[in-house]
């Protein structure tokens, strides 16, 4: 059913070694029960390539009953020219933590999607969802019924908790200090109502990484960033150190000299670490994984507030709790998260992310509301100007 449009510009993008999304759009038309969708998607995209302009209307407000989110309404602004994509909504399926699948499960997702949608997907969306790209309003309810009955639920959208996501963590990584997948799954389940029924001032994202490598980029794009760490000493296997040296690693230059705190030394074939000075940055460990290991007293650092640049420039998340234990059922973490969200929800203006709110109100009211004391770990450096507030309570001291 493909080949409805001539697409000379897009066809250029089928050349070259990297897999082509154009080919994928063409392929989608082959398996979907609604081939006209992918076809018209291709046609409209070709038009965009020649005019350098997109042809989508502003996001629509469609959804499934009982949920306020999970579907992004989308309508072509050229429905007469491309009727197959007059409706072209995306459905966000909440991915399993860590993006693990079986072939069987994925096939099921595909089968339902071919029945109700364009046959196009994103594996995965930037937030983490399994994104199904292109369906119509009338197909939403049946599609949801089929997916949900088979164990799949929708992810977040709108002014709501967004689908949490995480790195592969303990499932396949020797550095995971926390069970990122379990935490991610637990938080997702804990906040189901907040995820499906938008009632926040704006979006709220949670991401969980097992260590400071931060393989899910939590520190840059999550309102709540949970990053694993440890408290005690790095575990050293000197025999393995020797093997790295024997294999030609320049331990002094590559490891010791690159340690940001200069807390390491390398003498007589042995690495020594002054752990009190170690910042747990993961450099040495990651480059010598057989010889060095995180400590045993594990937990997480909680950071808050990162987001994209709108309105006044991007934010990276800020350290709020330097160390928190993270053991099932994660009550302390849930509790803290709830307090964080509550303060934000109570104080934010519409479309104000928590990072922006903290910036507007200052750290103090935020920390006081969530019951966290001021700590030097929360700042890179203390304030530079002499303009600081005093609360009545400070005078009693």
């Amino acid at each position: 059913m493909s080949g409805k449009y001539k697409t000379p510009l897009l066809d250029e993008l089928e050349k070259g070694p990297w897999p082509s999304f154009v080919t994928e759009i063409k392929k989608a038309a082959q398996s979907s029960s609604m081939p006209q969708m992918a076809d018209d998607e291709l046609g409209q995209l070709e038009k965009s390539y020649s005019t350098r302009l997109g042809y989508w209307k502003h996001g629509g407000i469609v959804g499934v009953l009982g949920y306020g989110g999970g579907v992004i309404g989308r309508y072509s602004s050229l429905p007469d020219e491309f009727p197959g994509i007059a409706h072209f909504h995306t459905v966000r399926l909440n991915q399993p933590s860590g993006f693990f699948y079986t072939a069987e499960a994925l096939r099921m997702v595909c089968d339902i999607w071919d029945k109700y949608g364009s046959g196009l997907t994103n594996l995965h969306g930037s937030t983490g969802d399994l994104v199904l790209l292109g369906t119509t309003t009338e197909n939403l309810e049946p599609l949801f019924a089929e997916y949900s009955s088979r164990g799949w639920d929708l992810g977040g959208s709108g002014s709501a908790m967004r689908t949490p996501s995480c790195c592969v963590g303990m499932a396949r990584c020797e550095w995971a200090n926390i069970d990122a997948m379990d935490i991610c799954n637990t938080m997702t389940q804990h906040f189901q109502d907040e995820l499906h029924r938008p009632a926040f001032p704006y979006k709220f994202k949670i991401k969980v990484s097992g260590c400071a490598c931060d393989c899910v980029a939590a520190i840059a794009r999550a309102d709540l960033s949970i990053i694993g760490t440890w408290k005690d000493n790095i575990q050293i296997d000197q025999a393995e150190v020797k093997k790295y040296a024997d294999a030609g690693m320049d331990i002094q230059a590559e490891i010791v000299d690159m340690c940001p705190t200069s807390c390491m030394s390398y003498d007589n074939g042995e690495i020594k670490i002054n752990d009190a000075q170690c910042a747990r940055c993961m450099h040495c460990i990651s480059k010598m994984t057989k010889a060095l290991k995180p400590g045993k007293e594990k937990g997480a650092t909680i950071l808050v507030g990162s987001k994209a640049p709108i309105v006044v420039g991007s934010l990276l998340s800020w350290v709020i709790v330097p160390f928190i234990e993270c053991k099932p059922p994660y009550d302390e973490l849930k509790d803290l998260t709830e307090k964080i969200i509550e303060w934000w929800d109570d104080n934010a203006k519409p479309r104000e992310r928590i990072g922006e709110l903290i910036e507007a109100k200052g750290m103090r009211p935020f920390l006081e509301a969530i019951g966290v004391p001021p700590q030097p770990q929360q700042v890179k450096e203390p304030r530079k100007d002499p303009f600081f507030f005093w609360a009545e309570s400070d005078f009693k001291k």
Partner: protein
Amino acid sequence: MSLPERKTDIGPPHYEQFLPPVIKNNYGKWKYHEVLSPGTMVHVAESGDEIYTVRVGSPRLLSTSSIREICDLAEKYCDGYLRFTTRNNIEFLVSDKSKVDPLVAELKEKKYSVGGIGPRVSNIIHTQGWVHCHSACTDASGIVKAIMDELYEYFTEKTLPNKVRIAVACCVNMCGAVHCSDIAVVAVHRKVPVVDDENVAKMCEIPTTVASCPTSAIRPNPKTKSITINEEKCMYCGNCFTVCPPIQIHNPEEDGVAIVVGGKIGSLRTSPKFSKLAIPFFYNDPPRWPKVVDAIKNILNVYAANARKHERVGEWVERVGWEEFFKLTGIEFTFQHIDDFTFMRDTLRTSAAFKF
């Protein structure tokens, strides 16, 4: 056909059911890993068990047909177990060592892009672009394809000083992690939006629209019941357009992309960093944005030639200084590079020591 019973608030399927047995058995007990080739690695557990990972590139935009083909391969070599990475690559999880080479062979034969592990270019984080987003100021998928074709050998073979994370954002909403990438492309407008007063009055929340502007360029216009934009103040962010559709920001003649560099996410060695502006503008040039691709390749090559082992792009630039970055890459320095917004104070040079 009657529909199956609808459920709500069940959340995602539990990941456990998708874990290969060797992972379930060694969960949280991995000892180390080794990168065997640009596309394969093995993780070894304390028990001695091993899991092999074979990684292949993905356009992320996948048809159900392609997913089924991938599933076929997973069943043939991995008992059906596979996963995706946080950068949208596909990972085959091979429990049986003897199946690794045959899998890789079949993948290569079928033109899959095996690679992306270790100190190289991995998949490009990107978002919807003209494929699906009304906000798009460029197409993401096309730029990504053009770049990855050109940098292909940095994914499948070549080694760099460290990982190089590339991203593309199709507008300043930056749905990827462009703001903290080694090299990234971000689409930008350059003209003040055009206001359709009649529809603004009918369709928009005026206070919300006024509040949306980062530079307070928007004022209510009581006469038209619409708004007016102070052209001097507007820096084309499009946030007003996001909250009020009749404010039109797209301008196919003058829209295009900027290139930013030097961001990073991990806290290794140096703190996470925002990307900084390297090249303020290229016109949209579909289907292959050749100047954008060249510019990125140039930056990558200069980095590869000058950085120390383990240095990320941003770490290298900070060591040598941005003045040196501009000299080495031959990129022109313009007024756009000088911050005049939130971080202005933080970015101007306050030292008598710098390189000429």
